[in-house]
């Protein structure tokens, strides 16, 4: 009897789950699966393509799975002179920019959100203005400026213009703005100085936007092509995207195998970074209203 009721109980709850899943859920999951496939397909194509011989990549009709998998493309890529150096350059530039942005943007964001000083609104307006002006219009003047400072063909020239970004300041200001003033005031009453408040109260609360900022900055710098192309006057200051364009994109044709292998090499670190930071990333975007 007891076994009987237990089994019927299980059966009804099973049906209940099915019933709850059925109508809207199936549609939702269906849509999500379609989205997932659309998102993952290019990555799959890239990874699979990187282990195909060039003839097979452009073959018509094409196929997803490599018929004769090969690591030739990667060998060719690694055989290129200085590939390790380009990887190092990219990492150095991206990591330094991330650290600079995390530190300076959160400090500026704190000042704009929680401190009162003359010209605050005007200064913040200037920051927003920089967000609006397209980078292409300031590109040449920026180059002339950096070049006049004697920084062309140097790591500093690669890094300095992106050490603080207006987007980062805006992002941090918006998040810190929503932290209750009472928290900051309580810390002040307890005798904490601004540095202490910033480090002990604000920063620990800012982990989501900081993670977002870290990813955005890393992505922007890791993928940056035009600035490194122009500022690096010799190959030893090239970053990965520049080197990759040099190797694979010719005047009259593209070496797709090499390009895909290079893309895999460039993208993998980003994917790993995102996997580590994704929870904070999603939270950061949701709570600062930046999409």
């Amino acid at each position, binding site marked *: 009897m007891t076994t009987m009721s237990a089994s019927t109980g299980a059966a009804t709850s099973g049906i209940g789950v099915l019933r709850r899943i059925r109508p809207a859920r199936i549609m939702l999951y269906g849509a999500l699966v379609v989205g997932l496939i659309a998102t993952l397909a290019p990555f799959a194509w890239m990874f699979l393509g990187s282990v195909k011989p*060039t*003839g097979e990549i*452009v*073959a*018509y009709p094409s196929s997803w799975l490599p018929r004769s998998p090969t690591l030739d493309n990667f060998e060719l890529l690694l055989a290129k002179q200085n590939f390790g150096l380009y990887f190092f350059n990219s990492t150095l530039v991206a990591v330094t920019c991330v650290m600079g942005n995390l530190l300076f943007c959160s400090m500026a964001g704190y000042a704009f959100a929680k401190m009162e000083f003359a010209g605050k*609104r*005007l200064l*913040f*307006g*200037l*920051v*927003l*203005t*920089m967000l*609006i*002006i397209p980078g292409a219009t300031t*590109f*040449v003047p920026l*180059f*002339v400026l950096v*070049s*006049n400072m004697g920084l*062309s063909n140097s790591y500093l020239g690669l890094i300095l213009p992106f050490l603080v970004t207006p987007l980062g300041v805006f992002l941090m200001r918006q998040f810190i703005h929503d932290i209750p003033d009472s928290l900051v005031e309580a810390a002040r009453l307890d005798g904490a100085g601004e540095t202490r408040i910033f480090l002990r109260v604000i920063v620990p609360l800012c982990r989501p936007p900081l993670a977002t900022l870290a990813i955005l900055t890393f992505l922007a710098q890791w993928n940056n*092509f*035009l600035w490194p*192309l*122009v500022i690096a*006057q*010799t*190959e030893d200051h090239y970053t990965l995207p*520049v080197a990759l*364009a*040099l*190797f694979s*994109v*010719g*005047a*009259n*044709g*593209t070496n*797709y195998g090499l390009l895909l292998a290079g893309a895999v090499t460039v993208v993998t670190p980003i994917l790993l970074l995102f996997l580590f930071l994704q929870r904070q990333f999603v939270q950061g975007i949701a709570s600062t*209203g930046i999409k």
Partner: protein
Amino acid sequence: MLSSTIAKSLVGGLAVALLLTGCGRSDARQAQPAAGAPIDAEPADGTITVWAMGTEGELLPKLAAQFSQANPGAKVQVTAVPWQDYAKKVQTAIASGDAPDATMVGAVDLAAFASTGGLEKVPSKLVDYGSFYRGAVQSTLFEGAEYGVPWYVETRSLFYRKDMAKAAGVSAPKTWEEYGPFLQALQKQGAKWGLSLPTGATATWQSVVPFMWQAGAQIMNEDGTKFTFDTPEALKGLEFYRSFITSKITSPNGPVSLGEIEPQFVAGSTAALIAGPWEENLLKSAGGAPFVDDKVGITPLPTGPKSNASYIGGGQWAVFKDAKNREGAWKFIRWMGGPDAQKAWYDLSGDLPAVESAWNEGKLATDATLAVFRTQLKTAQPGPNTTTWRQVTAVLDAEFEKVAKGVSSPQAALQEIQKKTSAIGTGV
């Protein structure tokens, strides 16, 4: 969402930013002497910094080593620059004065760089311009003066499926009259399309304008002040282009990206295409070496009412006004323009020499495929070297697309082209 405070700040910020940046623009073009100061015959010395693009940049140090042997006092420092966005790099270099001594320039870009006033005119008597292919020399000219020295050239000829032609019992076409029937014979061998032509993708003009040249058209007047697309010859050329599409020899949806057509050519669904010397390698990687040996034929473009003119492209060398080692740079360029260095560069890179006499020995003299390009180069010509040419090509590509898709008649398209290009002008 932006709050109203933010909106207000934004307005204030914008106003201040506009004030701070101010406005003002100086005319970049400066008066120049007719030619650069002459260069002596002494060996070069000092460090010479140069930019070269893509594969050329990767291989140039090997050629430069040979130069250093002849000029022990000179050291050439090569930076390999990607083709992608290289024009931006050259332009920022010109704008800031933070430039190397010399740079390689793609043939189509010379006018744009020269017009900024950032390049030096080629010193008088530096090289013998008569030794280069005429088309290559034409592409170094801007407003009547030479700004570049030709280095290598490329031109386009007709690639076709030799095996299909053999099976159909036809031989390569020599004239416009034989063109269509030849391609249709290949179609009967199972090819869906006889000839691949671009139908609106970027640089479609490079395939269509040669038809006009072949019909005898000059698309710009003698003194370079006016585009002349409203001629019967230009019309004849454009009608000939359209005839391939109306007779279903050419797909109205031509290739839009590089590397798209090769697999179809290998599969046999497209029987012919027009391409340059690089095509052989692309076909090798798409179909293998035996495919190229057994099934690919190449022949000069069939001759129209006037000629079989093709498009010429390639690379040339220019020296920046802000060069630190101007003498050394010109000496290096002079050396690279000599027949021996030209031949050595062909051996290193496979780039076709711009100097005609470099073709007289070795593989360049004997290879059958190269012989086709050699013939083609004699009459090949570049697009007009005006600063406005890039704008004009955008108009051409768009109008040619309308013709290809049957939206516009050749007459109407040429009228539209003439109207728009007259408005754009030649920049003079």
